[in-house]
């Protein structure tokens, strides 16, 4: 499997281009912004871009959809919890997609947004804005934050710690690194637990 990372200066989002080999069909995750560099990445590898996976519906991750649809007309996959102005194939938690000779496991990790999905392809995890290097995604309030932390611990941190992490913003990482050094995850996790205890005390 080949994974290419592209940094979009609009929204500072990471876009990932994945194909099994040069000249094969390819998948794009989160087209934040389509520029010459991204098109060159697709064309220089002779990839046939067939599918686009969206982690969630935020502009920084979806703004390039219109341009991509015009050039490559890919099939777009996204959570059923959001609606789009493009025809989208709705996917949900625990679903396994077979695209471009790759098996893609869909993991629902709500909290940053209700429609947040994480894609697991082999030993690579594309986490969007749920879990990032050294921090967790932003949330609208304490309840959403507690939901996000709970989802991360339950659905992501239970996976093998050698798994590679490719987030929607910032640098790549590994689950072990986040487990050891993600200050926000460790600190907020303890705080959320404390808040839960207060509720039980009441």
């Amino acid at each position, binding site marked *: 499997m080949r994974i290419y990372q592209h940094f979009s200066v609009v929204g500072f989002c990471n876009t990932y281009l994945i194909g099994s080999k040069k000249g094969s069909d390819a998948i794009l995750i989160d087209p934040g912004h389509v520029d010459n560099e991204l098109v060159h990445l697709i064309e220089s590898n002779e990839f046939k871009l067939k599918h686009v996976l969206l982690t969630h519906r935020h502009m920084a991750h979806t703004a390039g959809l219109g341009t991509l649809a015009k050039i490559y007309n890919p099939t777009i996959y996204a959570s059923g919890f959001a609606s789009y102005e493009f025809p989208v194939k709705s996917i949900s938690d625990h679903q396994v997609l077979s695209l471009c000779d790759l098996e893609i496991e869909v993991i629902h990790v709500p909290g940053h947004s209700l429609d947040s999905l994480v894609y697991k392809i082999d030993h690579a995890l594309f986490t969007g804005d749920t879990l990032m290097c050294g921090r967790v995604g932003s949330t609208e309030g304490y309840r959403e934050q507690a939901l996000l932390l709970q989802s991360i611990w339950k659905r992501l941190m239970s996976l*093998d710690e050698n798994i*590679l992490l490719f987030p929607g913003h910032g*640098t790549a990482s590994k689950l072990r*690194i986040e487990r050891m050094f993600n200050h926000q995850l460790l600190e907020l996790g303890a705080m959320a637990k404390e808040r839960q205890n207060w509720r039980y005390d009441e």
Partner: protein
Amino acid sequence: MFNFMTCAHPTCNTYICGEGPFCFRHSPNKDELYSSCIASLLGKDDVLDLSLTGGEFENLTIPKKGFISSNMAWCTFRNIDFSECTFITSFFDFCLFEGCRFNNITSRYSIFSGSKMIGCDFSGSTITHSNFVGIDTLYCNFGDCDLYYTNFGTSYLRDTDFIDCNLKKADFAHTNQRRVSFRYSNYSEAHH
């Protein structure tokens, strides 16, 4: 990307080395794998999709080359000269770097997280979008580096210089710093 198959040893989850089915530590052909790794480090071609974890390397001068989609986590590097090399989406997490030179390197989307660095020189390098979270440095020099969007969060920094660096969108949150200099750098533009 390097092979994601994990070691056939019953208690090991490390990625395999070479054709497998074992990781470097559990491989019966350790010497052969090590020599082939040294050959690819010292050869002219880029190091592509290599995975060797837990190896020990000493006194090497790596010629100008790329490390692409490779995994050398948990390795020990003593007196290795990586100057002028390019690192793209490569994993050097939880390594020990002692007396290594990384002058004028280009690092993009690479991971050095959790590593211990003693007496290492990164001066003059372009290190963007790279992960240095949780590193432990002693007498290291990042002078004159472009560290755009590079994350040093939760690191333990001692006697380390970040003089005249670009720190825009760099991250120094929750770092423990003693005798660290950010002279002539835009530290205020970093997250800390």
